[in-house]
């Protein structure tokens, strides 16, 4: 699984007359906070994931 960006994700759904509307959102935040936490716990792959939204190659 690879979202491809580090943005924090959420969705908004809303019932309209024609049916359900959906919006998929991404918001930036301070990725370094999360990345350094992951590194401190010994999970460099998840630090990379938090910074880049990509799986660490290799």
């Amino acid at each position, binding site marked *: *699984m*690879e*979202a*491809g960006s580090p943005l924090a*994700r959420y969705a*908004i759904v809303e019932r309209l007359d024609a049916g*359900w509307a959906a919006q998929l959102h991404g918001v*930036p*935040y301070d990725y370094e906070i999360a990345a350094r936490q992951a590194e401190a716990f010994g*999970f460099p792959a998840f630090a990379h994931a938090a910074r880049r939204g990509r799986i660490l190659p290799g």
Partner: protein
Amino acid sequence: MKIGVIADAHGNLAALEAVRDAITAAAPDLVVNLGDLVSGPFDPAGRAELQMRSGYLTIAGNHERQLQDDSQGAFDVLARPILTQEHWTWIEGLPATLSLCNGDVFACHGSPAGGDLEYLLEDVTSVRATLDADAAIRPRLNGIGSASLVLCGHTHTPRMVAVDDVLIVNPGSVGMPCYRDRGGAPAYHGGRQPAGALRHRRAS
């Protein structure tokens, strides 16, 4: 009816705070949190607290089940000692699925029919999560009743997919944008399928 949807926070408090602020600004009628709340390599102190006190309608993901099952998955082992008795009581009381809006909305972590580890929308046999065929998704929707909207998480892959008259929305992960799936079960999950019937709670 406007609903905010989050899933798979995995303990990333910094990401959660950003999402909370954005959702608050959108002023939805209610917010649903689809589970995998605390287990993860990020902030061990604040993450349970923020989600417990969020006021969001929250269901259990596979990690909430695994926390209670003594899973030795690395993220569960990391999370377990930081939980207070109040956190445990909260987690133990979370339902596996929710029915909202008089049955029009069904919320789950994985899939309605397959439990909290099944991927509802994706084929992951290639390691990459590709959108599965209608015919593969359809039986996984068994159990949604008359719902026209299904909310799911677990794959950390944002999508909106229509199958017949049902819209299925996965918001993606709040704070863990990717992970490597190893043989159908995400790395570090280390758990087992839920035993017996899923607990189901009707919220409104």
